[in-house]
């Protein structure tokens, strides 16, 4: 990591805020000595999904299959009749939405579920690693015996995926876990195995990325920006999107190529690496407070002599 002037200034300012000259020196020294952080990469065995919106007919088979595989009963809010959830929530881990612009430009369906980011913000945020990314498959799972229910994952997820059970005394975080039980039994994820048009398919991340690029090459001008969403966005995801409509309109935000933890936790990680900086700070503070404390004790004694009153600490 190259140290730019702004980083350096930022580091010095951080030191200054904690008000010790010693602090700023050591924070800069720490920044210089810290090794370049490695960007998290998807493993070779990482699994993925490819969703091609141009092939999706919006039949919601995948939504129904998802609910069945996860033993969920989706709400009927949309038409008060069918179990067709209007959005991801604690009873729907995957939904299909329709984007239909008023100006007559191409409409598009979009399937939403966990993106299983290569470097997920929710995993970086989770305090006891209740949300965990599998090192091999890359599946992001939730462990109820570690989760405190602070909902920080909901705040940080750029795709708004983790959902909280707002009712009851034992609330859970609900999100797509890539049908890990089905995978363990050798079957494909529910949604990919029922799609009648193969709009969503399952495979290795590397091969699906190749497939997506092949489709773009074969159909010039068909796909938005001739680009696969998920190859690099936010450090990469394990769900790829090919669409005709702009990604931003389909709930796929502009994120840049750096992952959210990589982009925003850089300084936090450096400041707390091996607790060196806090320890140095503590030593500095105690050094000065001890001096001032001794002066204070002397002063207390003088005061006691002068007033005859019991000294107050």
């Amino acid at each position, binding site marked *: 990591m190259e140290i730019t002037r702004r980083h350096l200034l930022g580091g010095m300012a951080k030191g200054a805020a904690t008000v010790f000259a010693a602090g700023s020196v050591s924070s800069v020294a720490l920044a210089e000595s810290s090794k370049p952080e490695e960007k998290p990469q998807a493993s070779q065995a990482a699994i993925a999904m490819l969703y091609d919106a141009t092939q999706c007919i919006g039949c919601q088979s995948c939504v129904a299959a998802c609910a069945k595989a996860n033993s969920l009963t989706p709400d009927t809010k949309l038409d008060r009749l069918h179990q067709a959830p209007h959005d991801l929530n604690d009873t729907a881990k995957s939904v299909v939405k329709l984007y239909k612009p008023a100006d007559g430009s191409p409409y598009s369906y979009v399937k939403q579920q966990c993106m299983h980011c290569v470097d997920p913000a929710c995993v970086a945020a989770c*305090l006891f690693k209740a949300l965990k990314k599998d090192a091999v498959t890359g599946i992001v799972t939730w462990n109820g015996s570690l989760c405190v229910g602070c909902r920080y994952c909901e705040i940080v997820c750029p795709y708004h995926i983790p959902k909280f059970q707002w009712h009851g005394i034992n609330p859970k975080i609900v999100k797509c876990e890539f049908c890990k039980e089905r995978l363990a039994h050798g079957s494909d994820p529910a949604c990919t195995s029922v799609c009648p048009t193969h709009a969503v398919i399952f495979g290795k991340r590397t091969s699906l990325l190749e497939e997506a690029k092949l489709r773009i090459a074969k159909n010039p001008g068909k796909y938005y920006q001739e680009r696969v969403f998920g190859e690099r966005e936010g450090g990469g995801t394990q769900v790829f999107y090919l669409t005709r409509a702009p990604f931003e309109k389909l709930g796929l935000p502009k994120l840049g190529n750096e992952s959210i933890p990589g982009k925003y936790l850089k300084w936090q990680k450096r400041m707390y690496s091996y607790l060196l900086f806090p320890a140095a700070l503590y030593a500095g503070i*105690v050094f000065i407070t001890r001096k001032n404390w001794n002066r204070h004790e002397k002063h207390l004694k003088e005061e006691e002599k002068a007033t005859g009153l019991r000294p107050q600490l």
Partner: protein
Amino acid sequence: MSKAWERSVPVFDIPILTRPFVALCTLGIVACGLVLYREIVGLGPASGMNDAYAWGIWKTFNIMALTGLGSGGFSIGIATWLFGRRRLHSVMRTAVISSFLVYASGLMLLGIDVGRPWNFLWILAPWRWNVHSPMLEVGFCMPLYTAVPLFLEAIPPVLEWVHSRWPELESTVEMAEGILKRIYPWVLGLAFLLPAMHQSSLGALMLLAGNQVHPLWQTPCLPLLYVWAASFMGFAFVSVVLMICHLIWGRPLDVDVLREMSRITAWIIATWLAFRFADLALRGRLPLAVEISAPSALFWMETLSLMAAASMLAVASRKHNVRLAFQGSLLAALGGILYRFDPTTLAFQPRAGAFYFPTAIELLIDLGFLSLAIASFSLLAKALPILPASNRLWHVMESARWNGAILHPRQADYKQYAAAD
């Protein structure tokens, strides 16, 4: 002159059980009942929170914003013990007790807010920690700060109370004081380090929200701006608390200490504002502040109130104007609250159409816990030597006690003495 003020004296001439005190406690009891309801039905029916705004006022207001006010023990402590402003020592007890209560009420609300509190016990198992999570840092550091340094700093007044109540325990009290004295510098070290860590991590919490936080607020410097804001908010809040208490309970107040606090607060705010503008300018975000939009209006509300606060405090300290010092401190506290609240709610835009407004239950629980904190402060200020006073007042209290009139000596008596200080 100032030496005469280096004593803390209980508010000895006013009964503890007053009508406002009972009202505050009633609000607290109502809140406890509502907490029971929340625990049974879950967060959904009890609060206005939803999947887009997953955090409500208990976190965004009480933890993110109000613990800034509870940073008096941190920032005034640093001025007192690191920068050798010994005169401020006389307000340290007020700072520590008010900080403790703000933190304690915030942490209780946090406990109510989380969905699966039983799993918080994993905080005792380091191998479970995600050490890079700002949430872990806050979750570990904040309770630790409240339970160890803040608690220990609040012990001396209690020991003095024990000593005056049961003189036969003198040797025990002195032993305890001896131990405290020996570890005090180390405790103070923690009392400055831990808030510096968790107050900045509160800012780091919002970093991971990425561009959901409006660019006028989202910056890599958010942790620094948060802890920096906490330091002026702590000063401002303790000034306000002191002035309100001394006004309500009719006690004289050392104007020199107030002046010094006003002056320091003005400086911290000025440097904070300069840093904030420099940061916005360097990142090229200033144009966002001049366009007409709700976020820019919020931005100017914060900025103008803090600018006004800084200038009022600067003038107040130069012209010995107590009224202006009060108004300036209040404005500084409010501006700080707004700045620290905005990135979590008003300037947090998870997606179009998302909406959050606290329910009556949420508000009443919040109000109830704050009421309990205020009631506890008034109780403690009346029972223990916390609020600063002159040696003269101490003697008045002692003679009042000898006359067996600890609760109701005539106020005029000591006011006349106090005037002589």
